[in-house]
């Protein structure tokens, strides 16, 4: 365990150094949500029945969760890029824990996204969004965001390691931006046709979004929704924990496969 922490930290350092040398991708993946936030908040928000400020306060937590779900894309892209490079072969021949390399990547992503989300939060505050719950609950909301980021990154790492090429991973990765559209991140599910509503409410993004809105005190929990949304904090924890429990071991196994 000690060795895993030591090796994982070394690999984490490697990823942070890479981001420092080539920040373009990281900056872009963290800037896009700001563009979406402004676009959705002021273009769509102006046409909705609810007052614009109210919609924008509803939208900011959704955008935070959608951005956390972006771990799927960055995890996949990074792992695919790495797995087609010689340096992975060197890692595999070193006497280090088999978990260290994927774990280091996932942790580095967590650090980068935590820092990278600060501008999004500042823009959200400028748009009128406020933390209306207690500081402790707000802390819980940020904790859930990080946990969900960690979970989606592991899914991404597995898909990236399994992908045939960097290009294939890039294309699949950019298709993941549709996932938040099929959830309550941008619009409430209440008005959706029955089958679509069920699908959207079982999307992990919906449970996490509802939990984050609830903990920030931005919107009430829709009690008539599917179980994970009606019990959002438990739903968010179960979804994130479940994804980690399934995908982290699969990703490690895939990495160690020979």
């Amino acid at each position, binding site marked *: 365990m000690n060795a895993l922490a030591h090796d994982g930290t070394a690999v984490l350092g490697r990823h942070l150094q890479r981001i420092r040398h080539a920040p373009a991708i990281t900056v872009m993946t963290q800037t896009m949500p700001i563009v979406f936030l402004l676009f959705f908040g002021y273009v769509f928000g102006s046409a909705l029945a609810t007052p614009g400020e109210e919609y924008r306060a509803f939208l900011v937590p959704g955008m935070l969760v959608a951005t956390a779900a972006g771990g799927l894309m960055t995890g996949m892209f990074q792992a695919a890029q790495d797995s087609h490079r010689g340096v992975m072969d060197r890692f595999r021949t070193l*006497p280090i824990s088999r978990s260290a390399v994927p774990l280091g990547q996932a942790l580095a992503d967590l650090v980068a996204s935590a820092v990278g989300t600060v501008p999004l939060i500042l823009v959200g505050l400028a748009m009128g969004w406020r933390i209306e719950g207690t500081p402790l609950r707000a802390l819980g909301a940020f904790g859930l965001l990080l946990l969900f980021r960690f979970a989606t990154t592991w899914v991404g790492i597995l898909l990236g390691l399994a992908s045939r090429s960097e290009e294939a991973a890039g294309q699949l990765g950019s298709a993941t931006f549709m996932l938040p559209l099929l959830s309550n991140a941008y619009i409430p599910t209440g008005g959706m046709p029955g089958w679509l509503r069920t699908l959207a409410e079982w999307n992990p993004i919906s449970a996490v979004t509802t939990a984050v809105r609830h903990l920030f005190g931005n919107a009430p929990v829709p009690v008539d929704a599917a179980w994970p949304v009606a019990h959002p904090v438990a739903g968010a924890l179960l979804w994130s924990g479940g994804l980690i429990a399934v995908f982290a071991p699969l990703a490690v196994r895939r990495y160690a496969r020979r």
Partner: protein
Amino acid sequence: MTTTYAVLSEGLRKRYGDVHALRGLDLAVPEGTVCGVLGPNGAGKTTAVRVLTTLVTPDAGSALVAGHDVVRDPAGVRKRIAVTGQYASVDGDLTGAENLRLFAKLLRAPRSRADELLERFGLTAAAGRPARTYSGGMRRRLDLAASLLVPPRVLFLDEPTTGLDPHSRNGIWDAVRELASQGTTVLLTTQYLEEADQLADDIVLIDEGRAAQRGTPAELKALVGSYAEVVVADPSSLEAAAAVLDRLTGSAPALDAGRRAVGAVTTDTTLTLPRIVRAVDAAGVHIIDASLRPPTLDEVFLRLTDRKELVA
């Protein structure tokens, strides 16, 4: 005294779909020696290295590296080896110094060891630049430096100088010689006979995933022989020159009327170019060119694999 083998493999097989990369490869590399695995592209050299360095599990056969089984105890093998690949196995996005410090940390080597190796491989000036901006030779040196952070029991070098200019190649050769002189066992794959000749104590010639021939460089060259050739001024004297070559080399000469040349293989290591020239000249043949050259890899390869087929 019994020999301890740093690498000992028996009947290694590996198939990728329809491609049989290894078809029963046997290797025995005594501790402290340099073994050159020589063969053309596609002979199975890289697959052999990947199996021996625990990157790939063989379909059949067994291999011990530094006394540990590559299939049953890969962690034991990894503690005792280092690998420098055909494709740079360093991180192009990190600087040279960052690469070595990362691997030093993972290998529990002191950070000062990384700086020491940067210095030794002439990379101090470039240490702060991303490795992807390095020349081929610099990358390969960085790669080799990463393999020496903790001196390995067995060092695997997969085509360490492919694509390098002669100057860079000599630098790598010097480093390998130094390691070997300190007792590190080295297994290197190469397409160049000269490289195996320069570095290896023993050469294993592999063809279609099997060892086709093995021996010291001198033994293999003696087995193949050198090629003696004379070019004559007058085509009508070709036959006379051929008769002399036949007598000197003991093998049937081949005539090339177009180039007015006649050549024959010789395994007689005492035969010299002046002797050939004097003998042909004494037969009254007007020579315009003559050569006695060691076999090229192509010739070694074709002849030794042919010989194998003749025996079989």
